[in-house]
């Protein structure tokens, strides 16, 4: 009765973007009966995702809450919702090449995934987050398996099994959270019952940490990125990772807010292990895609530093700066990592080795310069956007008096320079007869990402504005 009442009284306007994407997805499924050209569907999803951004800006830009607080619409969630849509927009057109049959299924699934992402971006309730997150997970299992080759299936199977285990961890964790807090809603948690809170924390951390590929839950990620189509690995390592990052921020900074100390130590340890392991593993790797996969693991370690600063709670300005840095990092990360994964498509072989890039600079200088920009941005070298993202992160660490952590992070980022630059050196090798795939679907994503590495720097001017969104994390 209560539920029906709620449905009758609720104002659905804030859900128009999700509804619109759903309608478009079902429309594409219907069109699949007649049209078989993947191009049509990629263009449709491209356009509908862009329209969804505008709908978000129109209907969700004012603060409100619906379903009695289950969904909190505010600028913070809006920011993440938009950048997750952008990560899909970025991969949707180049993916055309890798979708050979039943394109309508691929793109409809992508839109469904996006709906779940939007819901998760606005939610502060563990159950809603769980359901939305499952939507994303199941959708991405399908996307990963789409190539139908043995490698794709292997990747999808690994992803599926580990993902399912993670799901059960999340459920367990949510249940224990309910025991300790008495509610699934994470707003205004005042006290947590101490016995079950640690169990809840560990279980939720393991469950969501799987998606963010934090060490020691990272091995699926390396294999899955390696085996999936390039555009899907770009999406997996950007869009879903940003989502997992957002959810982890929400759960651990808002839900567990009375329990700062445990959160702090947990995330400090995990971030150090993740950064160091990812970088060291990437050093000895020669498979191109696995190098990027390990570097993506290391990057997740940098992102997690935000939680360490915030839970350390040294001063309000350091907390603001840390969350701001995390928001900016997430945006920049989408393009630098996504562009890097697309660059694997340049190599025409099945298993791209780093030596297969040799001679690229002489075949296509433009693409080589673009990749250089992406790589130095990943390495955090100025004046690229990647540098500023890292710079603000380290700045927040230092302004939160976590010097030693900043030292570890910076030494790590110096370590990572080695394997990024090794790729640059290889590209400039002469006398190689490698053939490169320079078709537009490989060429443009990389070039656009490289240009954005400079354009996004201009966003620094908007930092005072973005800083006002930060409080939205806590559901205000």
């Amino acid at each position, binding site marked *: 009765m209560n539920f029906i009442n709620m449905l009758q009284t609720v104002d659905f306007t804030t859900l128009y973007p999700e509804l619109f994407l759903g309608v478009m997805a079902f429309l594409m499924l219907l069109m699949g009966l007649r049209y078989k050209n993947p191009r049509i569907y990629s263009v449709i999803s491209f356009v509908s995702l862009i329209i969804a951004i505008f709908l978000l800006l129109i209907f969700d830009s004012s603060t409100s809450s619906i379903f009695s607080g289950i969904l909190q619409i505010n600028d913070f969630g809006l920011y993440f919702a938009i950048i997750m849509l952008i990560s899909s927009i970025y991969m949707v057109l180049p993916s055309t090449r890798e979708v050979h049959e039943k394109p309508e299924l691929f793109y409809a699934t992508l839109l469904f995934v996006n709906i779940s992402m939007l819901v998760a971006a606005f939610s502060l309730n563990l159950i809603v987050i769980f359901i939305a997150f499952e939507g994303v997970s199941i959708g991405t299992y399908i996307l990963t398996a789409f190539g139908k080759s043995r490698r794709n299936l292997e990747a999808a199977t690994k992803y599926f099994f580990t993902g399912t285990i993670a799901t059960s961890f999340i459920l367990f964790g949510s249940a224990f959270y309910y025991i300790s807090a008495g509610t699934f809603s994470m707003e205004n948690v005042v006290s947590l019952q101490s016995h079950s809170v640690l169990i809840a924390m560990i279980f939720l951390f393991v469950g969501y940490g799987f998606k963010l590929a934090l060490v020691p839950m990272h091995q699926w990620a390396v294999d899955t990125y390696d085996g999936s189509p390039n555009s899907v690995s770009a999406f997996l390592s950007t869009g879903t990772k940003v989502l997992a990052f957002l959810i982890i921020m929400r759960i651990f900074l808002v839900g567990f807010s009375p329990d700062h100390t445990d959160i702090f130590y947990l995330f400090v340890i995990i971030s150090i292990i993740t950064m160091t392991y990812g970088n060291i593993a990437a050093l000895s790797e020669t498979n191109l895609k696995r190098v990027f996969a390990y570097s993506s693991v290391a990057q997740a370690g940098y992102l997690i530093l935000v939680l360490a600063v915030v839970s350390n709670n040294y001063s309000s300005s350091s907390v603001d700066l840390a969350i701001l840095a995390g928001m900016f990092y997430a945006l920049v990360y989408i393009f630098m990592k996504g562009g890097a994964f697309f660059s694997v498509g340049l190599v025409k072989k099945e298993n791209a080795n780093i030596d297969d890039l040799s001679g690229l*600079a002489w075949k296509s*200088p433009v693409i080589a310069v673009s990749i*250089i920009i992406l790589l*130095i941005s990943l390495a955090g*070298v*100025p*004046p690229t956007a990647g*540098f500023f993202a890292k*710079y603000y992160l*380290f*700045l927040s660490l*230092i*302004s939160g*008096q976590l*010097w030693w952590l*900043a*030292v570890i992070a*910076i*030494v790590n*980022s*110096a370590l990572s*320079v*080695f394997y990024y*630059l*090794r790729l*640059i*050196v*290889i590209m*400039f*090798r002469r006398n190689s007869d490698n053939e490169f795939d320079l078709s537009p679907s490989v060429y443009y994503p990389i070039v656009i990402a490289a240009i954005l590495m400079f354009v996004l720097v201009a966003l*620094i*001017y908007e*930092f*005072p504005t973005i800083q006002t969104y930060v409080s939205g994390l806590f559901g205000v």
Partner: protein
Amino acid sequence: MFMVSIFLLLIILSISAFFVKKKSWEISMISSLIILLLVFIYALLNFWSGYDGGIISNYRLSLVPSIGINFTSGVSSLTLALLFLTTIIMPVALYTSKNGKYGSLFYGLMMLTEVGLFGLLISRNFIFFYIFWEVVIIPVFLLIAIYGGEKRESASLKFFIYTQLGSVFLLLSILTLFAFYYSLNNVFTLNMTTLLSGQFIDGTAIPVFWKYFVIFGFLFAFLVKMPSFPLHSWLPDAYNSAPYPVTVILAGGLSLMGGYGFFAILLPLASIIPSSVSWIIISLGIISLVYFALVAMMQNNLKKMLAFASAASMGFVNISFGVGIMETGSYGIQELTGGIYQILAHGLIIALLFATLFAIKSKTGKENIHSLGGIHREVPILSSIFLGGLLASLGLPGFAGFISEFSVVAASYAILGPLIFLVIFGMIITASYHVWAAQRALYGPYNETLGSIKDIGRHDIMVLGSLLILIFVLGIYPNLIFGAISKYVGVFL
């Protein structure tokens, strides 16, 4: 404003150098000469008279004031001396790239290096200082990685990792200063003058541990660039596998960065540098001087020999800085000014030597001492210029190197005492291997397997000769620059 407009012009010229299809050598040469001329005019207008230390032509452009990012620039006589060096070695480096078949990418990267050096020298905001610091490294890394000789891949990576490790500590030190300033005053600022002001540094705002940390970070970054003794292992590989133009920039430009850091950033911090650290700097300088000189003596390859000679003479900069901050009064001024003058003199001399060696290499095809021999008979002018460069490098009176080495050694006796003999010992070894190399490579019986070779033409004489004359003029009339530098130093003592 004048300086900033020169810098903007340089940026535009360097970007356009990337897109020139033909005649890229001519265009980048002309642009670097224009910049040199403009810097010269600037110096005449502002420094000819009336300079009394400190920083002039301040320019400030607020970018993100809320977090302290402003483009602030200013020029002191230290900056100006090193700007001269940068703008002079650039045409020399381009001169050595004339015969190589390089594309516009090469010249674009060369000009970009100049942009980085120029920006580094004029910026007075730490964030821009750091950005330009990196802007120098990346083009040089690419130049070695793309156009280097054998072993270029490992050499370029080694170079980059060493210097990147240095930059990391540089960034940490900058951020530390920034954070303590913020916790003291609640103001975000990255302005160099503010963060390095005695009031902030000497106060109790920074705990002792972090003061040492800041000094360590800066010192590490600058010593890598010099390169000084334990952090030098990138040097032989990078110098040897880099093409000649890049070697000129490495020797003149990158060691300049380390020296500039010493005198622009560590000198204002001198009050918190404990004397034990000064002694470490001094001993690293002496070890560099003696050790690199001994290593250079053993080299058969002239390019490697010059690389180590360059590192050895940068040892004087270490000594000068370490001794200078412990001294006061006129001794201190003479010591520190000598160190700055040494950066300038060393850069000019080493650029001349590498450029001349390049001419020898392109005439004879050889750069090993044993494969040359007696070439004075065939190419008298070229070998005379090379001899002149070698004599200047060993510190013969009459050349610029003498002025700086003399003032460093003379003024450091008060602190070093008998240890001065180690410095003198290093100078003797330096002199001996220079003369020995000249004797074996230039004089003696002619190595007939080289065949008959033609002496250098008018253009080469013009470039190399004018550089030699400049070194000579700075050696007999040092006050052109020495006086202005001593005023800059005087502010800190």
